[in-house]
């Protein structure tokens, strides 16, 4: 087997066994990058020189036995909305086109402590706002499975890099599906953990109450190993949780006997591509055949999730993005007459269309006289959605559904109709509103050979059950 075909955990084992040098792993990654990057464009920034320097230092630590982590020496790609000290962190925006952070995000720090080698920073929708990676100021990323199509978004660069073997795993962030949907489109595994599991410190915020960092990986084991490495209480993030149950690799058992799995009938209604529907149902059937108890049930409030999500996420974003003003860092307009003019021009020129649309929507729903009707109402809907999941999880251990209504759309198809793009988030956003974990795993291909993603939800803190079911399914499915 070629080196590039190895999973992250397999590579880690070979590095630990001194069968593979860290440099060789990097060579493999950069060979793929050199061959494919001009077409795929997974990365905004490559950090080749420092990656090799670090590889040599790590090799010494591995050889001396000081670094024994299962991911030691394995090359990783980081979404460009996580701060990396000394390395450009642009959020795929013009406004942060010169922003080099003075500190590193906690999740990335944890990976570095586990011996990860950062290859570079991946492309994304500007400020994670989008579902296609087409809103990036630095150009689109193409889906490695079909370069005429989008990789999904907003963590499209991370998903594409994993699918194209341009890294062995990647970090993404998920506010409304931004890990799970591109994982589905690119045929890789992605998980958004329970809100609070991974520190948000250093993640440039989009919707603070919804954002979570998570892995995009080649298989379920990799996803579990990476999530295990980055999950930890962080005193620098007030919303971070002190969980004791983050040994996710221990949950990887081929056993779903007696697991109660609910299929929300409301996720299989109008708008869902029949090919996607049948692939997901077939996967659920496979789990049933393996001993799980699978049944359909009605999940309440599904249609309210999208308006509630866009109200809350945009409200928070409108405030989170105020700090980008040309004063302290980032882009500043060339010509201005006074402070107000400088703000106006900097932000008008620095932000892209989709970001400006969401800032305006968010500012509107928070404005005096509309706050109660929009923002407060959306919070109430959020609470109702949480309640609907509570009721569902009283009956089921897991919930299974599609990741997105269709497989990856063609480049340029989505942005012309933002409403349609927003509606595409219907199956993923509820997990963010409810704070629950959700995993995306490939479960088939459509007639064009494009990957179809299945989503597995669990109640808060039930990542172990999700991993168990996903692992079992992956064994049944075989190599994707």
């Amino acid at each position, binding site marked *: 087997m070629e080196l590039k075909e190895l999973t992250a955990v397999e590579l880690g084992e070979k590095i630990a066994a001194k069968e593979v040098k860290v440099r060789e792993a990097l060579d493999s990654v950069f060979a793929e990058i050199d061959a494919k990057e001009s077409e795929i464009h997974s990365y905004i920034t490559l950090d080749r020189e420092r990656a090799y320097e670090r590889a040599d230092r790590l090799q010494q630590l591995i050889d001396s036995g000081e670094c024994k982590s299962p991911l030691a020496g394995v090359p990783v790609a980081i979404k460009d909305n996580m701060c990396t000290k000394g390395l450009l962190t642009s959020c795929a925006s013009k406004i942060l086109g010169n922003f080099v*952070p003075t500190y590193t995000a906690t999740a990335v720090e944890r990976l570095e402590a586990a011996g990860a080698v950062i290859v570079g920073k991946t492309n994304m929708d500007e400020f994670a706002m989008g579902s296609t990676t087409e809103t990036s100021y630095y150009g689109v990323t193409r889906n490695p499975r079909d370069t005429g199509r989008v990789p999904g978004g907003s963590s499209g660069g991370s998903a594409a890099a994993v699918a194209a073997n341009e890294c062995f795993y990647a970090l993404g962030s998920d506010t409304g599906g931004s890990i799970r949907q591109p994982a589905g489109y690119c045929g890789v595994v992605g998980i958004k953990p329970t809100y609070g599991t991974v520190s948000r410190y250093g993640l440039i915020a989009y919707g603070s109450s919804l954002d979570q960092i998570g892995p995009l990986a080649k298989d379920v084991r990799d996803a579990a190993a990476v999530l295990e490495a980055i999950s930890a209480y962080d005193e620098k993030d*007030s919303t971070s949780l002190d969980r004791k149950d983050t040994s996710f690799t221990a949950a990887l058992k081929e056993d779903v006997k007696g697991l109660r799995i609910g299929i929300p009938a409301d996720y299989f209604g109008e708008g869902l591509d029949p090919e996607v529907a049948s692939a997901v149902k077939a996967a659920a059937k496979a789990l049933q055949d393996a001993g799980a108890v699978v049944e359909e049930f009605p999940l309440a409030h599904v249609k309210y999730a999208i308006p509630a999500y866009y109200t809350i996420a945009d409200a928070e974003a409108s405030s989170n993005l105020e700090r980008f003003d040309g004063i*302290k860092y980032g882009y500043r307009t060339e010509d201005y007459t006074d402070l107000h003019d400088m703000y106006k021009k900097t932000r008008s020129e620095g932000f892209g269309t989709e970001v400006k649309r969401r800032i305006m929507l968010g500012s509107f729903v928070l404005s005096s006289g509309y706050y109660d009707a929009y923002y407060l109402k959306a919070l109430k809907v959020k609470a109702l959605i949480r309640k609907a999941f509570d009721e569902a999880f009283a009956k089921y251990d897991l919930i299974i559904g599609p990741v997105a209504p269709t497989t990856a759309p063609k480049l340029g198809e989505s942005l012309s109709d933002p409403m349609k793009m927003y509606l595409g988030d219907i199956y993923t956003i509820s997990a963010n509103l409810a704070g629950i974990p959700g995993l995306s795993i490939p479960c088939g291909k459509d007639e064009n050979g494009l990957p179809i993603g299945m989503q597995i939800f669990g109640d808060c803190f039930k990542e172990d059950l999700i991993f168990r079911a996903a692992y079992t399914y992956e064994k049944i499915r075989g190599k994707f």
Partner: protein
Amino acid sequence: MSREYETVIGLEVHVELATKTKIFCGCSTQFGGEVNTHTCPVCTGMPGSLPVLNKQVVEYAIAVGLATNCEITRYGKFDRKNYFYPDNPQNYQISQLYLPICRNGKVEIETEKGGKKYVGIHEIHMEEDAGKLIHDEWGDVSLVDYNRSGVPLIEIVSEPDMRSAEEVIAYLEKLRMFIRYLGASDCKLQEGSMRADVNLSVRPVGEEKFGTRTEMKNLNSFTSITHAIENERERQIDILESGGSVIQETRRFDDNKGESYAMRSKEDAQDYRYFPDPDLIPVQISEEWIEEIRSRQPEFRPEKMARYAKEYGIPEYDIGIITDSRHMADLFEEASRLCGQPKKVSNWLMVETLRLLKEKNMDAEDIRISPQHLASLVELTEKKVINSSVAKEVFEQMFEDDTDPVRYVEEKGLKQETDSGAIRAICEQVIADNPQSVADYKAGKEKAIGFLVGQTMKAAKGKADPGTVNSLLKELLG
């Protein structure tokens, strides 16, 4: 002729809390650091940084709330107040709008007529301070210093219950006393650690409805607050009397000119788009926490004054001075307990201490003398180990660096000569050396004895007790 008008005043008081670190990060709150040195990603609004609440801020806010009879909010939140300005690095200030930490309190004040009344506290909320703009006078630029960004503040919002400048000052003094006694702030108006904005309207006496109010900012002393209130009252009455109407606006008081000018009107008011800060978890306050803070509340000044009058028998004026500062009161009590001489302790505080504070332009809070050493000093004089003029010298040294008076007297050899034989010998020598004075004394000039006492003290290098010398000389002179 003009009608009688009543002034209606409510205050918004900002107090900078005396925490060691900022409200949402670990940076120092100390004054006077090099520009942008007390900063980190959090208080400079770096992308991806997150706030974490400093628990001490909540403790101080609860303590002030308890002192002012407020209800403490068990489930509170922080909200973002969104507005663009360069001193505000995130372009939102983290404050509290919907669920402030304290509500519905009241503070008792004495009115100018000698009566008592309550001023209601609408709410107390916690928030962060902004940075400081530095305008370059030569270049065409402004710079920002974020050292103050994130310094904790509480804002105490009163009800419109005050009717005169005197009541306002009485209220502010009361607040300041509580906060200083709690150690929550030094409350210095000039330095900005206490800032008061005055909301004022006037209405004809007997009228129920409030008039249109203005808000006055930039008031840096009790004097300027008093002037601003008087000035604004006159201005509003003039407008009403000439048939106009008061515009709701924010005004800035110019202390030098003694008048105010409009900063912005209600129409220019921004929409701050307040909403709960999703980066911070709700502030949940348990009954136990409140009780723990309540049990640590100090005895405040009014109770202390009453108790001192009863327990120590020192003049009311002295009690007023001593209890003005909790630090001085603590020093007084502990030193009195140690030496059992409250009047003597009070005397040291009232005379020498006040003199030195004034001379050195210091606050009572800055007194460094420990109660142990002050008590020792009282005992040294009581036991006539040193005389009063030596004691003053020792005290000055103690005031500098809390020197131990016993050791100091020992080391400098300042003990009074107690060997009566030795003093007698010096007296005899002085009598022998000053025949003229002796003759004068014997001729009935009582004053001459003073000169002889002085000479003896001089010869004894000050270490004799003047009373003893006096009687000894009289005895020797027959």
